[in-house]
């Protein structure tokens, strides 16, 4: 299952959204999530994808639609991988 699908599955189970939800629809404007809902989304992203969400990252650009959230998660995963690679490289060079 790709990131989008996992997000959609979570939304369907947790927020009772319609199956045909547009991947670009704003969560907030469509009333899908409110302020507590965003906290749930943050927890979901951290637990399901093993990323660390910084407070400053909790903005509509990252969290307000399926596509935005998927892009954010993919970016955080890439950052985490490149960090761990650079740590390994560092360890080898020592």
């Amino acid at each position: 299952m790709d990131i989008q699908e996992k997000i959609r599955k979570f939304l369907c189970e947790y927020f009772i959204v319609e199956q045909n939800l547009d991947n670009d629809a704003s969560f907030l404007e469509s009333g899908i999530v409110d302020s507590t809902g965003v906290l749930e989304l943050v927890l979901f992203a951290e637990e399901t994808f093993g990323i660390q969400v910084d407070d400053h990252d909790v903005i509509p650009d990252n969290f307000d639609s399926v596509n935005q959230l998927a892009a954010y998660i993919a970016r955080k995963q890439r950052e985490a991988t490149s960090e761990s690679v650079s740590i390994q490289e560092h360890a080898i060079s020592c």
Partner: protein
Amino acid sequence: MLVQDFLENSARLSPNKEALIFGQQRLAYQQIDAMANRLANAFLAAGVQRGDRIAIYLGNSVETVVALFAALKADAIFTIINPSTKAEKLRFLLNNCRASALVAHARTHSILHSVCPQVPSLRYLVTVGSLPRPIGDSSLSIDTFRAIQNHSPAHQPPARAIDADLAALIYTSGSTGLPKGVMCTHLNMTSVATSVITYLENVAQDIIINVLPLSFSYGLYQVLMAFQIGATLVLEPGFAYPYAILNRMAEEKVTGFPGVPTMFATLLELNDVEKFKLPHLRYITNAGAALPVEHIRRLREAFPAAALYSMYGLTECKRVSYLPPSELDRRPSSVGIPIPNSEVWIVDENDQRVGPGVVGELVVRGSHVMQGYWDNPIETAKSYRPGPLPGERVLYTGDLFTMDEEGFLYFVARKDDIIKCRGEKVSPKEVENVLYSLPEVAETAVIGVPDPVLGQAIKAFIILRNGKPLDSEDIIHYCRRHLEDFMVPSQVEFRTELPKTDSGKIRKASLR
């Protein structure tokens, strides 16, 4: 004065002034006024009559603001319904007020398909966006908001309403579990808006941000008051993204920030909130529930330029009191003095006025005391009782208060078991009714428990029928399907028995 005069006067006096900012949209007073005229003319063409109810089932948006003024311009009564309201409750609300028109977002089409045919009074539906398939009800005519803005005339329809007419119904949770529609006349609403503007010293240069739902009177009045003084309202869909709100406030040079304790608690949890100095912020207001004294201190540290107003009110009269910011150091836990042009007193159980320091029920008198609950004379008679003048009614708030020697008010507790979560009233009964509709639930009791962020968190105690496997996630998930977001319990505790009184009622006091 009528409520729509707020918009019409500002459109006449400062037609090009920015009235409403929402996302990328920036609208001047004359644009909003013209949009509202077009929608009002569409309502009238669809047969809306003076005094008809028009329901607006939308989140915070330009369309909501336009629709409420359009309803008033068509001599109708508007009611704004929280967009997280589920089908069953929407049906109840529309039938309770016998709405003749509904404005709703097309993306709620599956709810509209199930609800609209079950509301016999409904004749006209305006959708924001296009419905994917028509609603199979031939008596219902349907237009889109956009088509109306393109084709309906922009002239102002002649107003026939007077200020003794109802302008709005604002639904609030009742202890019986059924929401009650507070009937607000134009006079009630213009009186209280004027009073609040007076003590906040609002001016046309103010830029007020509103993140509160417009279905909630505290949010709604931000629109009304901003438009009354010809100020600018920055409307946000909600408070989900605190950093986005802080950035918005900085970019738009916001001068006024109304909020509830949950929002302020969220802001204070951010580790760098004081970096946002917000030099233009002139005032912060708190209502909905009391702000902890420690949060008052930290808010003032974080936003030193802003005066902080602690306020108290209830939908039944909108606002009761405010604490002048100069008194905050001396009486941090007080909600202050009666708002301008109103009076209050405290009575004991025998309806006798009590002196300073004595706890009793707060009673409110003034032209802001609304007209009672729509179609509900029994509940109306409990809260709205005869006042000092013949025919006058005063509001018994159901809240216990004390007053100090100088007349400053202190909230003590509610008389009933209504929960205040995120600043909004939640009826435990309404939540319990939903839980009882689960066949696995044998018995349940819902209470509010103290929570540092929510004020009160909603906690459900549940006894399951023998051997039925349900966990707390199942319960919360079920509640999400049937209740608005702010009513969903955040804590569930399973028990094998619940404490009872001798008469067999659940003793909630023992659960707290």
